[in-house]
């Protein structure tokens, strides 16, 4: 059993720097194994900042998130929030 979701990236920076850091942090806060797919490539581990940054996914592009584990739905919800929150609000949300 695993859950899958396609999300369009909102932050202007794309999946780099701050949004990427927040994304990886969120992955590692959950117990499920999360992979991320971009374009036609095989999905890769989403818990690595290097791996996620090396995708080069930009704002407005789609990524596939595949979660497998006890909290897979919660993980996907949280990750979707990260990827669809504009950057300035991302900062505000953290205070």
């Amino acid at each position: 059993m695993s859950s899958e979701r396609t999300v369009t990236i909102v932050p202007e920076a794309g999946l780099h720097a701050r949004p990427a850091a927040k994304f990886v942090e969120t992955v590692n806060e959950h117990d499920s194994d999360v992979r991320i797919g971009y374009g036609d490539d095989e999905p890769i581990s989403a818990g690595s900042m290097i791996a996620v940054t090396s995708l080069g996914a930009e704002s407005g592009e789609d990524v596939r998130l595949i979660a497998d584990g006890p909290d897979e739905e919660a993980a996907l919800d949280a990750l979707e929030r990260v990827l669809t929150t504009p950057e300035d609000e991302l900062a505000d949300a953290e205070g």
Partner: protein
Amino acid sequence: MTERTLTGTGATPRSGVGTVVWYSPDADLPDPDEATADPDTERRRFEDARETARSELEAERERTAERVGDQEAEVFDAHLQFLADPQIEDGVEGALEDGLPAEHAVQRAFADPIEQFEGMDGRTAERADDLRDVRDRLVRILVGGDRVDLGDLPEGSVVLAERLTPSDTAQLDPDRVAGFATATGGRTSHAAIFARSLALPAVVGVGDDLHDVDEGATVVVDGEGGELVVEPSDERREAAHETHDVEIREEAVTTADGAEIEVAANVGQPAELEGAKARGADGVGLYRTEFLFLDRETPPDEDEQYETYLEALETFPDGRVVVRTLDIGGDKQIPYLELPEEENPFLGERGIRRSLGPDADLFETQLRALLRAAADGDGRLAVMFPLVATPEELTAALETVDAVADALEDEGVDYAIPELGVMIETPGAVFTAPELAERVDFLSIGTNDLTQYVMAAARENERVAELRDPRHPAVLRAVARAVEAAHERDAWIGMCGEMAGDPELTELLVGLGLDELSMSAVTVPDVKAAVEATRTDEAAELASAALEAATGAQVTERIESTTPDQ
């Protein structure tokens, strides 16, 4: 020890003596003798180093957020994630198993991802620098050597570095640092401009020889001659102390016969505002806004810009603040704007050309912030457009101002139209100065660019440096033409290039009719003193003699024959 002199480019007409403190964020690593380290010991060393790096990064994130801003602090979040990356962990573990010491394991583990990032396009490639930063931090912790805290140096330190970034210089405490020298950089590099704004002795572009200077050595930083003197003789040390102390005048000055000349400062970032005020600047004659857009992932929003402009107005409660709208292109790059590579960037899409073209959105946001700030500025805010070459461009820029004002009006937002002006930097602007001046409140001559374009001699090209002489009649006649056009149409006219900050030229510039001179803060007191020593009738005579000269040498001769001994 015998005296040794290294040459570079002087950034400030100031000298200082002090003790060398090396600032090297990149740690050097000796080659491993043999791969026989104990993996368990090395693993513990690695884990400890990672823990130290984590606390350092968290502390730096806090400090940057406080001192500079949340946006600038974000880079540390990315560093923290790279630090914890499983790919790095695996790489380090593999290298430890091979018997490598921890510092070499770190080097090896980062090598592949750095290479991978570098091979990619755009923003991912830039992240390679982040990886290098994290790697170097770990290596430095492992091989020992405390990271120098630029904010807490012993008094009398001379900082030596390969380069100093904006975040480095922002930490330097000018009261404790006696000066700095960098291996890279030129007169217009960030570090050099920063040094001038704080009157800090500095030499840039010394080259690789700089690395031969030892920690703790005594050095003279001669920012005027562009020399770094290692283990100086007593005479050399004494000479460095003989700074020409010009009195700082906080009030506005007039010529000896009572003509008011505004003496303002060029400012490149908020950290320089206080320094400019402390040097007695009447206001800001050129506020470069590029810093707002550099070293970040996305452009600044309207509110952030509004706050920044307000800060400048508040620092000079009685002075004018002239803000230049975004001037990128040429040699100034901003990653997220994806500027195209151009064959001749200085003759390409830069300044107002981008603001009326691909950066129209940024231009509008900037103008919104400026018009809002003008509402709080009691008429002291002025805005000027860079690199205008034609009246058509000015028309388009003014139309954008009107459209932005209409939008703010509709939204019920407080705004005011600031003083509007055009920079005179191109021959096109010189020849159409009457048409330009007709429609604005002021003109401001950017002599660095004007000289480069009048002489067709690129700013960065040392082989044509001799041609870039702002004293040449070719340039002076262009200046005179712009001044005449401005005054005939009741516009005021200023000058904001290097030329304006040279006290030897003050009399000539007053004679040419400039109403305002704006320069790096360091020479504000010197120029104020030169203004007070000037008589407008004599200055006018000097100006007409200079305009009739045929060569740069003749102009220099005429200046020297009239300048009283100083």
